[in-house]
C-alpha cells in the first residue's frame, strides 16, 4: 500500500512559491466553478467579470489599489511582528485607535493647511496604534502574557470606544439626532493619484520597501530575525529579547494605526465603528500568505484586493453575496493550502521499510 508522506524541503525557492500559489488558486477556481454551476451561474462569465472589474482599465485597477492599500499596511503590521514569531491579531483594533486619534487631532487643530494636517493626522494614527499596543507589548515582553489574546480583546474595546464617541462626546451637532461623528475637514483628504487610488498607495509602498530593507539588510533586522528564529541564540549573541519583542510589537501596532489613519483620510470621510471593515483581520491572512516577508506582502495584498473587488462586482451578475464571499474564501484557501507545499514535498512511501523479512 502506498501512502503519502510529507517531507520537509531543505530550501524554499521563490519559483516554487509563485507556482504553488498559481496552482492553489487554479484548484480553487475549479472548485468554485462547480459551486457556481450548482447555483445556476455561468462560471466563465463570472470569472471574466471578476478579472475585468479588478484589472481591466485604470478605473478597475484603481479600485484594486484602493482595496490593497489597507491590506498591505495591516499585512505589513502583522508581518513585522510575525518575523519575530509574534502574532498581532488585533490590527483591526489598532486601525480604529489610529483613526480615532487622527480624528481627535483634526477636531482640535483648526485651520491647519492640508499637507500639514495630513502629516499630523497620519502621525497620530501611528501613535494611536502604538498606544493600543503598549499594554499587550509590555505584558508580553515583561510578563510573557500571550499577545494573541490581548491584542484580539482590544479590538472590541477600541470599536466600542468609537461607538461611545459617536453617541457622546464627538456626536455631530448637525446630524439631526443620528449617532454620527463629524466629517474630517476637506483639506485632510489624501490627494488622489488616479481613479479611486490615492496617495495612501505610495505610503504603503514606501513603508513596504523600508521594512523590506530594514528586515533583510540592517543590523536591527538581523537581530529581529535571529531573535525570531532562535531566541536562545539571540541571547547568546547579546540581543535583548525583551527590547526586541517590545519594538516589534509597537512597530506592528503603529503600522496598523497608520492603516487606520490612511483609511480615514484617503477613503472614508468620517470615523465610524465600521471603518476598519475587516482589513485588520485580513491582514493576518495577507502576512501568512506572504510568509511574513514584507516584499511578499505587497504582492499578496494586491491579489487579495483584486479578489475582493472582483468578488463584489459579480453580484451585479445575479451571483448572491454569499456565493461571492464563499468564492473569495475558496481562493484564499487554495493559496493557503499551497503554503504547505512550499515547505513540504510529498513522497509516496510503501508499507514496508524496504527491508522486509
Amino acid at each position: 500500500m502506498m501512502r503519502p508522506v510529507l517531507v520537509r524541503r531543505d530550501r524554499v525557492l521563490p519559483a516554487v512559491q509563485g507556482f504553488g500559489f498559481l496552482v492553489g488558486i487554479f484548484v480553487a477556481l475549479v472548485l468554485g466553478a462547480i459551486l457556481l454551476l450548482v447555483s445556476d451561474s455561468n462560471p466563465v462569465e463570472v470569472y471574466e467579470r471578476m478579472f475585468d472589474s479588478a484589472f481591466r482599465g485604470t478605473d478597475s485597477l484603481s479600485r484594486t489599489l484602493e482595496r490593497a492599500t489597507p491590506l498591505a499596511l495591516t499585512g505589513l503590521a502583522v508581518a513585522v511582528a510575525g518575523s519575530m514569531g509574534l502574532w498581532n491579531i488585533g490590527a483591526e483594533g489598532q486601525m480604529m485607535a489610529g483613526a480615532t486619534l487622527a480624528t481627535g487631532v483634526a477636531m482640535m487643530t483648526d485651520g491647519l493647511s492640508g499637507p500639514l494636517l495630513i502629516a499630523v493626522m497620519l502621525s497620530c494614527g501611528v501613535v494611536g496604534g502604538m498606544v493600543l499596543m503598549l499594554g499587550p507589548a509590555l505584558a508580553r515582553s515583561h510578563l510573557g502574557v500571550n499577545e494573541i489574546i490581548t491584542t484580539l480583546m482590544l479590538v472590541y474595546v477600541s470599536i466600542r470606544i468609537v461607538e461611545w464617541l459617536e453617541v457622546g462626546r464627538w456626536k455631530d451637532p448637525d446630524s439631526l439626532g443620528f449617532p454620527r461623528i463629524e466629517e474630517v475637514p476637506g483639506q485632510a483628504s489624501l490627494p488622489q493619484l488616479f481613479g479611486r487610488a490615492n496617495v495612501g498607495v505610495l505610503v504603503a509602498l514606501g513603508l513596504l520597501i523600508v521594512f523590506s530593507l530594514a528586515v533583510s539588510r540592517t543590523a536591527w533586522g538581523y537581530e529581529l530575525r535571529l531573535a525570531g528564529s532562535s531566541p536562545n541564540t539571540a541571547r547568546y549573541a547579546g540581543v535583548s529579547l525583551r527590547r526586541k519583542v517590545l519594538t516589534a510589537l509597537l512597530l506592528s501596532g503603529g503600522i496598523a494605526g497608520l492603516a487606520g489613519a490612511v483609511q480615514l483620510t484617503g477613503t472614508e470621510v468620517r470615523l465610524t465603528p465600521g471603518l476598519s471593515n475587516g482589513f485588520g483581520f485580513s491582514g493576518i491572512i495577507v502576512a501568512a500568505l506572504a510568509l511574513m516577508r514584507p516584499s511578499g506582502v505587497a504582492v499578496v495584498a494586491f491579489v487579495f484586493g483584486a479578489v475582493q473587488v472582483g468578488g463584489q462586482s459579480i453580484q451585479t451578475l445575479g451571483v448572491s453575496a454569499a456565493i461571492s464571499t464563499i468564492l473569495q474564501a475558496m481562493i484564499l484557501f487554495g493559496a493557503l493550502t499551497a503554503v504547505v507545499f512550499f515547505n513540504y514535498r510529498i513522497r509516496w512511501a510503501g508499507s514496508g521499510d524496504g527491508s522486509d523479512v
Partner: protein
Amino acid sequence: MAVAQSDHAVWLRGIEKHFPGVIACDGAELKVRAGTIHALLGENGAGKTTMVNVLAGVYRPDGGDVWVHGQRQVFRSPADAIAAGVGMVHQEFRLVPSLTVAENIVLGAAPAFLRSGEIEQKVAELSNTYGLAADPTRPVWQLSMGERQRVEILKALWRDASVLVMDEPTAVLTPAEAAELGLTLRAMAEEGRSVIYISHKLDQVVAFCDEATVLRRGKTTATFSDLMDVDLAELAEKMVGTATAGNIERPEPLEPGPAVLSLENISACNDRGLAAVHDICMQVCANEIVGIVGVSGNGQKELAEVITGLRQPTGGKVSLSGEDITAASPSARYARGLAYVPEDRLGVGLAPKMSVVDNAVVRSYRSQRRGLFLAASKCVAFCRGLVERFGVRVGRLNDPIAGLSGGNLQRLLLGRELAEEPKILVAAQPSRGLDVQGVAAIQGHLVEQRRSGVGVLLISEDLDELLALADRLLVMFEGRIMGEYGPDVTPRTILGAAMAGMPPQ
C-alpha cells in the same frame, strides 16, 4: 524468515537512525526479558531516547527491526506501538491540565459510551491494584509532578501495556516519590510486564533494575544481565568509555601561563530553580586544557552557562584575566575574550533556519555594519574566511545551515568562536555525535588553541577524549567538584568512583 523470539519482551535489533548532521543510532541493540526492569544507560546523545522512540513508534528506524513478544513489528505511529503493548512515559508529561485524572487516563482509549462514574471507579480500581494513589476526579493541573507521573503510568496500564518505557522518570521526583516509583515498577515486573528505565542516576539504576544495556555513540557497548554484583564505578566507567585512548595523540607538555578564568565560590540553580552548582572554585590558565568530567546532569551545563553569562549565579564571582565579569552580558564577555561552544549547537550556538553567513556573524555582526546596514560584502568575506580557515564544507553561503552535516556545523561554530582570538574557550561536548574526521578536526583545534596560549575548559562526557587532551581533570558530581586528577596518573576506576559520587579513600 521470521524467527520467534518469545523469550524476549522487546528486541531492538541493529537499529540505525540518522538525523540531519547526527547519527543517533548506529546498529544499536536492546534485549529486554519479560518481567524485568531494564536500565538503558548512556551519556546524552548516546542514542537512548532515539531507541525508545523507535520502540514507541515515534520514529521509523532507517535500519534494523523491532520485535515485541516474538513478533516483528513495523510501527507507523505511536498508536501502532500502543496496540502492540508498548507504553511510554515521556520526560515531558503529555497530559491535558484541565481534564480530570480519569479523563486523561481514558483519553483516546475510552469506551464508546462514556459514563464518568463508571470510568472513575475503574480507574480507582486500577490505581489501587498498583499502589498508584491518584484521585480520579481531580483535574491534572492541581497535581504534583509525582502524581502526574502516576497518571502517565496509569494511562499506559489502562491500555494494558506489557512494556513500559520510562524516560528519566526520577528527574522530576522527590527522593520519597522516587522510592515509591521503584516499588510500583517492581510490582509491574512481578506481573510479567517489562520496564525500560532510562536514567543518569546510577544509584537508582542499581537499586531498581535487574538488567542494563549501555549505549555509547549509537552503539551497544555493554550489557549486564544481573545488576546485583555490579558496582557503580564500573557502570559509570562503561558509560563514558572503556576503549584505550590510543587514537588521540597527547599534546606536548606546556608550562601553564597566568590564570585567565577563575571562579570563586560559584553556586547556581537549574531551570527548575533547584540548586545545581554548589560553591565551585576553579581556575583555567593560559596554555592548558582543563577537563570537566562527569555523568551528565551533574551541573556541567549550568556551570558552563554561568561562566559564559547565559545564567546568573546565585552566589560567587567569575573573573576573566583578573577582571570581575560576573554581571557582564554574554556578548560583553565574548568581546573580552571568552569564547563558548555550547552543548546545544543548534538550539543555542547556531540558528538553524538562518543562512551560513547569518550564522557566521552571530558574534561579530556589530562590527560588520556600514551605517545602519549590515555590509553584506563584509559579512560574506568574513564567512568565507571562516569556511576556508576551518575547512567547513558548505553549499551556498545563503542557504540555511540546517542542511550542513554535524561536523561542518561544529567547524563553523568553533571557527566563529575562535575568529577573534579569545583568551579562553569554554567547549561543552564539542565532539559529541560527530564522525571520525569531525572529532579529529575539533580536537586538533582545541590542541592548537592551547599551544597558542588560550586556556581551554573542556566539558565532556567522553573520558577517552578528556584523558587524552586535558592537562588536569576535575570530576563533577551533583554540582560539586569531587577532586582534581592528573590524567596520566589516575586509573579509570578511581575516576569512575568519583563520577559515581565516591571520593577516593
